[in-house]
């Protein structure tokens, strides 16, 4: 699957060079690449599970499916795709959660590593995970819109890393 994703990405890059970003972005979110999320091995393992962050609608005002077949609304499910090995920060976070028995000491220990209580999404982001909601393909394919470098949005750099299997 990693090879398939890389091959699609390379094809996409070639399109980008010939025809510009719009076509390249649509290729990036071809259905084959999106299916990477279902696969459970190698660099594309879904390790963080699915987090519900509420319903998202397209800020551009689209309704239903777009012309590429993507939904213009999100169920709020966010897929966190694994890139490489767990970082020390993530290991430490999990260790603290396993070892501490009460919420107050957990809060204190998490504070020591610079994480607020309940900050799992931040930990994942800092640990080289990327966040892809089910609205993301539509935003990119139809509107050429990524969302910048923040833990709750899709950072194009991390997206490329994930699809390239770096």
């Amino acid at each position, binding site marked *: 699957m990693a090879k398939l994703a890389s091959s699609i990405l390379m094809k996409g*890059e070639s399109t*980008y*060079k010939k025809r*510009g*970003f*719009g076509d*390249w972005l649509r290729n990036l979110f071809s259905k084959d690449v999106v299916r990477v999320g279902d696969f459970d091995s190698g660099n594309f393992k879904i390790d963080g599970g699915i987090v519900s962050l*509420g319903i998202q609608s397209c*800020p*551009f*005002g689209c309704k239903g499916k777009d012309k590429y077949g993507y939904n213009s609304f999100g169920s709020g499910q966010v897929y966190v795709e694994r890139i490489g090995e767990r970082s020390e920060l993530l290991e430490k976070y999990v260790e603290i959660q396993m070892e501490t028995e009460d919420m107050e000491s957990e809060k204190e220990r998490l504070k020591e590593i610079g994480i607020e209580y309940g*900050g799992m*999404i*931040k930990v994942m*982001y800092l640990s080289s995970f990327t966040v892809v909601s089910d609205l993301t393909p539509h935003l990119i394919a139809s*509107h*050429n*819109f*990524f*969302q*910048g*470098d*923040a*833990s*709750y*949005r899709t*950072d*194009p*750099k991390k997206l*490329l890393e994930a699809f390239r299997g770096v």
Partner: protein
Amino acid sequence: MESFDDILRKVTAGIGVEELERRLRPRNPVRDESQWSDYSSGGFLAPDENFVDVVRADYETLARWLS
């Protein structure tokens, strides 16, 4: 390669930067702006973020990676 202005025109087509920024910000008032240091509470843009800067940064990232 497309210029950033061309890309921005495509991203904001039919809607405009100001209206898009309005829609991308959270609907509910943000009580404590410091909470935006890393996470969203319902919107795509933090109160101190500029939409054009976010899009520019993304495309500069992509251009660097694809050059």
